[in-house]
């Protein structure tokens, strides 16, 4: 260390020796009394000055004229010598003494080294120090960024910032020091301890927390919703059952019972496929019911009702029918089950053979007299296959029937009958479905309960499924023994077989799979039929294309007409589809290359036509005029004043769920829309003049999107949400209207303190800060650079 210092000093010395002092002081004040010396000095000066006049030797050398304390040992003066001091000269005397060897060595080293640069000027030095200090301080200042940011963003700031922070600590301290003294207090504390009531955070006990954890809110909500739905359904069913029970119509009950039976049977069929064991159980149950019936001798002509009917039967057709039905039922129920044997068919045949006489006998017995009407009817009905036969065996028998179909004439006959009855059933099903479809629209407009709607859809689905199954069976050409309904349309020609179905599928083609049920049916159709239809479709499409090229509207009409020709009842359903159809047809138009017809046209038309054709081709599909007209129509519709329904639900009647406003009331409180003046663009076909703008209101409306918002929706959203107590609960109102800055009157607000930096949250990262800074126009240059680096 020491050596280094001396080395440095020596370096300076050498430097001094070489360098020439540029700053020279004039000789300081000389003592007054020594005049002789003074005179000499003056003379010397004069000489020097004369010497300077030649302009070569301008250096003036410093003169030390008096002893001073401030003389530095390093500032060796070379004054008077007239020449520069050389290091070698200084070193001369050292040579002799050996004790200064180390110094000599150092000096040698110094000689080899480079000289130090000139020290910076004062201004420069100050500038550097200023810059360093500034950088350091601005670096320090960044610690305030999160605090400042937090305060700028804060929804609410409460001043003075340092609230009495005593309270937070206070609770713990107080509780720690305080002890229960009175017996009551002790008791309470015991109780609290037993429940592990936390003292500092007394919101929830551990038990409560656990229970909260056990079920999340969403789960609970879901479960609650489920329960609610179930309850609603239950009450609905109850209500329905009650209603149905009250109905006095016997016919209705009869139908109901039949339906139920059918359903049970259906269920059983399904069950048999899915779960044979339970199906067996079910079968056993049915057996039991049958046995009971057989034992109880019900459905015979013994009862009071039956007797009365017997009396009535002579005169009343209805009574006769009822009688017959009862007898049939009796027959079904009391029929003894046969053990499934090897040759089913024989048995069937036998049964059929034996059927007619049996029934005739019975009828004769039961009705107490020959009734040709009755007899005939009965005979017809009994032609239907036996239903109570064990289904498992019946299916087997069916398979066997298929095999031997050609051989046995009777079996063929049977099958035919069955098929017809089946078709009838399916027709009925379809009919009901159609009815539902048509009735759905008006019904929907009414305010019906959701539950009802659900149920309806459910029933629809069931129907569809049933139909599907039937179709499936039909396609395999197997007969099923489901339909119990009397086949009245026996005389129907078998050639008409496929007709309703085909029409429907055509429909489906037109609407391109809008009706799911129909589509399902389509899938199940035999291949040949499908192929045929496809051919037909292709033909249709070609036709369509041609037509479209000519004129679109005409084609639309055509489209509307064609199905109506095919089947009139479907017309109703077809009409709303017209619009959709046009869209679809447009699509097909775009999708299909118009190769064939265009080529033909090109061949026989001239240049101009081809040009037109090209344009047509280019703009195929976008019909601007039609679009515009559609738009205009929509605009007109939208601008029309609407009716206002002022009826208040629950006003003047009992409230509660399932409230339905009566039509009368609605009519009474319906404010009809005024006619209004004619639209301005009524006579201008190519113009839409919007009449939305209300000049009176426009004065109150914001016409430019204000600054911080980037989208109209954002701004509208802020306006839409009401903040008043009229629309919000008290708590929400308070929260919404909390002022940005709260000050306590009479309190001095001190400037923010250093310790607030520590208490500020650290999660506010730099990127967010940067964004915020940009938003507010505050930014820090260094941060900016960093952010930019990060950005890509």
């Amino acid at each position, binding site marked *: 260390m020491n050596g280094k210092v001396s080395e440095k000093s020596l370096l300076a010395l050498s430097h001094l020796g070489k360098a020439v002092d540029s700053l020279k002081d004039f000789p300081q004040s000389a003592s007054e009394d020594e005049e002789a010396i003074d005179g000499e000095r003056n003379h010397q000066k004069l000489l020097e000055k004369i010497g300077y006049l030649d302009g070569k030797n301008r250096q003036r050398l410093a003169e030390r004229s008096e002893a001073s304390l401030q003389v530095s040992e390093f500032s060796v003066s070379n004054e008077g010598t007239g020449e520069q001091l050389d290091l070698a000269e200084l070193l001369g005397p050292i040579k002799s003494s050996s004790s200064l060897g180390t110094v000599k060595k150092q000096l040698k080293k110094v000689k080899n080294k480079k000289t130090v640069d000139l020290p910076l000027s004062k201004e420069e030095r100050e500038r550097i120090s200023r810059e360093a200090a500034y950088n350091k301080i601005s670096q320090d200042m960044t610690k305030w960024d999160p605090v400042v940011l937090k305060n700028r963003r804060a929804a609410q700031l409460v001043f003075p910032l340092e609230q009495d922070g005593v309270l937070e600590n206070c609770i713990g301290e107080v509780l720690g020091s305080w002890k229960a003294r009175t017996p009551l207090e002790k008791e309470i504390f015991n109780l609290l301890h037993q429940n592990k009531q936390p003292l500092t955070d007394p919101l929830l006990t551990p038990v409560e927390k656990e229970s909260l954890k056990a079920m999340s809110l969403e789960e609970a909500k879901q479960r609650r919703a489920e329960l609610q739905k179930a309850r609603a359904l239950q009450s609905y069913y109850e209500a329905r059952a009650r209603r149905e029970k009250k109905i006095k119509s016997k016919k209705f009950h009869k139908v109901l019972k039949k339906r139920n039976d059918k359903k049970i049977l259906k269920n059983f069929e399904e069950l048999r496929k899915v779960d044979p064991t339970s199906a067996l159980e079910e079968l056993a149950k049915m057996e039991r019911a049958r046995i009971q019936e057989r034992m109880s001798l019900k459905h015979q002509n013994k009862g009071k009702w039956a007797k009365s009917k017997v009396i009535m039967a002579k005169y009343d057709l209805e009574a006769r029918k009822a009688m017959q039905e009862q007898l049939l039922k009796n027959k079904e129920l009391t029929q003894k089950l046969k053990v499934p044997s090897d040759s089913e068919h024989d048995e069937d045949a036998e049964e059929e053979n034996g059927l007619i006489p049996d029934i005739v006998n019975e009828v004769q017995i039961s009705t107490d007299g020959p009734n040709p009407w009755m007899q005939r009817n009965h005979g017809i009905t009994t032609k239907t296959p036996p239903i109570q036969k064990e289904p498992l065996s019946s299916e087997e028998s069916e398979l066997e029937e298929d095999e031997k179909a050609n051989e046995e004439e009777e079996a063929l006959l049977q099958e035919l009958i069955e098929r017809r009855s089946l078709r009838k059933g399916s027709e009925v099903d379809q009919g009901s479905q159609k009815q539902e479809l048509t009735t759905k629209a008006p019904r929907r407009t009414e305010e019906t309960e959701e539950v009802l709607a659900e149920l309806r859809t459910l029933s629809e689905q069931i129907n569809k499924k049933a139909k599907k199954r039937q179709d499936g069976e039909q396609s395999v050409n197997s007969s099923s023994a489901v339909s119990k309904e009397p086949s009245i349309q026996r005389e129907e020609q078998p050639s008409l077989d496929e007709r309703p179905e085909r029409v429907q599928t055509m429909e489906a083609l037109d609407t391109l799979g809008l009706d799911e049920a129909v589509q399902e049916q389509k899938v199940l159709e035999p291949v040949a039929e499908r192929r045929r239809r496809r051919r037909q479709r292709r033909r249709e499409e070609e036709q369509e294309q041609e037509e479209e090229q000519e004129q679109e509207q005409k084609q639309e009409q055509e489209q509307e007409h064609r199905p109506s020709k095919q089947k009139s009842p479907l017309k109703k359903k077809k009409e709303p589809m017209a619009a959709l159809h046009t869209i679809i047809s447009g699509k097909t138009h775009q999708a299909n290359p118009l190769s064939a017809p265009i080529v033909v046209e090109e061949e026989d038309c001239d240049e101009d036509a081809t040009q037109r054709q090209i344009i047509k081709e280019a703009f195929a599909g976008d019909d601007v005029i039609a679009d515009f007209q559609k738009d205009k129509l929509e605009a007109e519709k939208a601008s029309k004043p609407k009716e206002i329904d002022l009826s208040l639900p629950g006003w003047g009647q009992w409230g509660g769920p399932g409230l339905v406003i009566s039509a009368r009331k609605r009519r009474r409180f319906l404010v009809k829309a005024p006619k209004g003046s004619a639209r301005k663009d009524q006579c201008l076909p190519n113009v839409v003049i919007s009449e939305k703008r209300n000049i009176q209101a426009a004065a109150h409306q*914001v016409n430019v999107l204000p600054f911080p918002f980037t989208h109209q929706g954002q701004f509208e959203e802020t306006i839409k949400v009401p903040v*008043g107590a009229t629309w919000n609960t008290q708590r929400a109102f308070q929260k919404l209207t909390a002022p940005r800055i709260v000050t306590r009157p009479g309190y001095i*607000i001190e400037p923010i303190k250093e310790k607030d930096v520590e208490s500020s949250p650290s999660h506010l990262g730099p990127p967010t800060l940067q964004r915020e800074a940009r938003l507010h126009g505050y930014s820090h240059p260094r941060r900016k650079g960093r952010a930019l680096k990060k950005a890509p």
Partner: protein
Amino acid sequence: MKVKMLSRNPDHYVRETKLDLQKVPRNYDPALHPFEVPREYTRALNAVKLERVFAKPFLASLDGHRDGVNCMAKHPKSLSTVLSGACDGEVRIWNLTKRECIRTLQAHEGFVRGMCTHYCGTSFFTVGDDKTVKQWKMDGPEYGEEEEPLHTILGKTVFTGIDHHWKKDVFATCGQQVDIWDEQRTSPICSLTWGFDSISSVKFNPVETNILGSCASDRNIVLYDMRQATPLKKVILDMRTNTLCWNPMEAFVFTAANEDYNLYTFDMRSLDEPVKVHMDHVSAVLDVDYSPTGKEFVSASFDKSIRIFPVDQIHSREVYHTKRMQHVISVKWTSDNKYILCGSDEMNIRLWKANASEKLGVLTSREKAAFNYNLKLKEKFKYHPQISRIARHRHLPKTIYGQIKEQRIMKQARQRKEMNRIKHSKPGSIPFVPEKKKHIVAVVK
């Protein structure tokens, strides 16, 4: 069978005591309360109208000075005390609750150039044209005692401003240089200079207490660090800055009141461009003071008005003036964020409400809720033309009104000229200079 009956829990409608409020069941179904936006709009319109109706900000005038009020100081511990120094060297201490002068002392000969209070509120300092710094006791002299300063420091040059450190027994004066003094010594701890010019005001940063800002007559603002005894940076503006004020909540932000009618809010870390240029005054801005919340500041101007600016906005939210108020030289925002004091040429100190339409006194909770709601509504619908028009409307003296118009025309002309110049010259040859950068001449390191 389920039997449904009407059943009510008495807890829901029976009061425990008759002093309880009646429970009013309320159905918040939005269907039952339609037209929420129009209704709220109407309410907002009413609120903003009422705000204008009740906007009576002037509270009191404190008269007693016999010359223009040149400077003021807030008491750091007492809200009701304020000090003022006049151009005749008189210092008065006022009680704001009584609105009267509680003490008068002849502090200097000539102007009282600046005054500040000690951070603990026991004494205050004044500087005057007589080249002295005097420290005075806050409490008046005892009976029979003479009114004398605690200390008097005789300086070599005139002091033009003074400010006290917020935590230490240190104060800073300015004149030809910025001097930092220890209270116990008669010579400054250090003198900070950067060039030669007369410095008009010096202010300590209230948060980062070792940083000072000063503004000099050669149009610059200089920042200093007291610890390192060096200046930090200098920014030169178009025109002279009269005074500056630090934001008490944001350590690195300060606002400078400039002769060119504008105020400039700077971020200390990037002086090459102000964060905001606040422009509404029509004459030189003489003084500025931040609200203690740091969200707004008030400025006093030579145009005989004071204005309140939100920190992050260009234009003022409020302008106060009276017929008799002349050039406002000094302004202060009281420490409870409620009032504004301004001292003007015509010897009066005026007390204003910081929020013009605020109701003074204790508010009931319902009143508070109503005010909060109205405030929220005004904020929500502030972009609607009718509401903003009413909220913006102020009556101005003819002179100010005329000058505003005139200056608008001038500004437009300048803009037009600039646009024309850009239009008719080679593209890119005349750069577009944003408003913020226009007023900054240079930043000196």
